[in-house]
């Protein structure tokens, strides 16, 4: 039973709603306004140029490049975080000696502050002192001085690997909780019917955890798209801008070149992008719930 109380209802949500309005929604509109201005310092004083600002940014080509990097980064990091998380959850859902210890240890990356994770990987990737090159040598593939973060083709791979490492435990935790709530009698029934492990996974496990899985995909994608410090610390967007994603590019434009107009255009576009994707995913979730 819910009490009907309009005044109290509004009064209690007011602080939260006002806060979000003032600190998120109004700034977003302000961002939109700035984005219609030409603020390139080499063009003199800022002036209003309207929608043609977007057309010019597009023609410049950098926008599409950063967009592509952002998509590659978000999709590959989110996909592998969920995949590794699912595999880990399936393994940790089985009983084995010292399971509690393994469960605690695999949480470490997610709990580690983001900037520290990034600094540690920077050291791991170091061409001279990093353990990665030394691991490759120990495994018998010869002594190389690979510059993981300084080689254009490799840098994106390296930052993606570090980001997968940082975030997969979250996916694992959520999926493990979901796995534990799958009714055991369903598996018993399936076993009597002679279904093998793979069949049980496809027909019982996967459908039961799909709700949580979708939420995880949504959250992880948004977080990854916005994940600033990993790339900022590891490569700063380099080498030759091969790892610039939206947040690092926005930071460089605004606080490096003071080109707030161009930075705002990138912000507005990334907001719309994230918003549309989330809307589609959420709609999908609600549709499934109704069925």
């Amino acid at each position, binding site marked *: 039973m819910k009490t009907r109380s309009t005044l109290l209802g509004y009064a209690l949500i007011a602080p*939260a709603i006002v806060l979000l309005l003032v600190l998120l929604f109004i700034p977003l509109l302000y961002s939109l306004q700035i984005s219609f201005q030409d603020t390139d310092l080499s063009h003199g004083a800022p002036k209003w140029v309207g929608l043609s600002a977007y057309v010019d940014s597009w023609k410049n080509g950098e926008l599409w490049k950063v967009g592509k990097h952002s998509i590659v980064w978000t999709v590959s990091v989110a996909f592998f975080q969920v995949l590794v998380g699912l595999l880990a959850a399936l393994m940790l859902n089985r009983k084995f000696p010292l399971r509690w210890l393994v469960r605690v240890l695999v949480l470490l990356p997610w709990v580690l502050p983001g900037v520290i994770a990034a600094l540690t990987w920077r050291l791991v990737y170091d061409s001279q002192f990093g353990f990665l090159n030394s691991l490759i040598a120990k495994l018998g593939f010869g002594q190389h001085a690979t510059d993981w973060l300084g080689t254009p083709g490799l840098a994106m791979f390296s930052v993606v690997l570090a980001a997968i490492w940082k975030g997969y435990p979250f996916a694992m935790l959520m999926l493990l909780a979901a796995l534990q709530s799958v009714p055991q009698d369903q598996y018993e029934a399936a076993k009597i019917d002679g279904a093998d492990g793979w069949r049980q996974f496809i027909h019982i496990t996967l459908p039961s955890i799909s*709700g949580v899985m979708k939420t995880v995909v949504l959250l992880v994608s948004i977080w990854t798209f916005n994940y600033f410090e990993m790339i*900022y610390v590891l490569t700063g967007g380099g080498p030759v801008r091969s790892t610039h994603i939206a947040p690092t590019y926005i930071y460089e434009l605004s606080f490096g070149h003071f080109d707030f107009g161009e930075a705002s255009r990138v912000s507005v576009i990334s907001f719309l992008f994230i918003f549309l994707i989330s809307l589609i995913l959420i709609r999908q979730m609600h549709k499934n719930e109704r069925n």
Partner: protein
Amino acid sequence: MIIKRLGSRILFTAGILLLLFFTLFPFMQMLSTSLKSSDQLFTVPPVWIPKHATLSNFAAAMQHQQFVHYFMNSLLVSVVTCILVIIVSVLAAYSFTRLEFPGRKFFMNVILVSQMFCISAVVIPLYKIVSALGLLNSFPGLILAYMAFTVPVAVWLLRSFMLNIPVDMEESAMMEGASQLQAFIKVVVPLLRPGIGATAAYVFLMTWQEFLFSLVFMTDPSKRTLPIGIMDFKGQYETNWGTMMAASILISIPVFVLFLIIQRQLISGLTEGATKG
């Protein structure tokens, strides 16, 4: 049959070991580097297990004049953000789960949509607003920004915890003459305590490690928080990796302990929020 079982056993163990190796590999370098004396730090190829382990890097990190200062700044910002977010969010969550009013669904969607905001989409306007208000390099400015990004998740978590508390108990308290406020304080809040704890810890973890806003808002070195402060060890020409890794370990331990305490609550809140929509 036995061979098949043995095979899957070996595969399973190999899987666990691989997972552990992938997860712990960077930590090995972190720990090893933090224990190396300065003459061992820059050997090529790197030594995995330092010959003469030393705690001197930890001492150096603690003695770094700004370290304690940054620590206090971080603690202040995180604790205050936590308290304010919990107050604001408990009220909103109560309203959403226990009261009926026109536009309830709409405002719940406002909260939901707020979770999708990219931090980078509002960092520029917020920076301009905060600097126009003269709040750059001030803790209230940073705390407000942190609140905006943690309140949506906090409301969502607390709402799912509150949905698990049966309404009957409040109703019977109210039948016995308690007002709605009394029923809330005497019945809901005590039962909600674990949920509040988990939510507060989540907010704390998020603000404790926040990077972008702190980097942009706090230009005065004396106002920096830990995540930015730790970059001090990354000198202009060469990085003192030993001290930096030691400092990193010192910063991470409290967060890890906190997380271990609350993880069960947090996960149940997050997964239930996911299934109850």
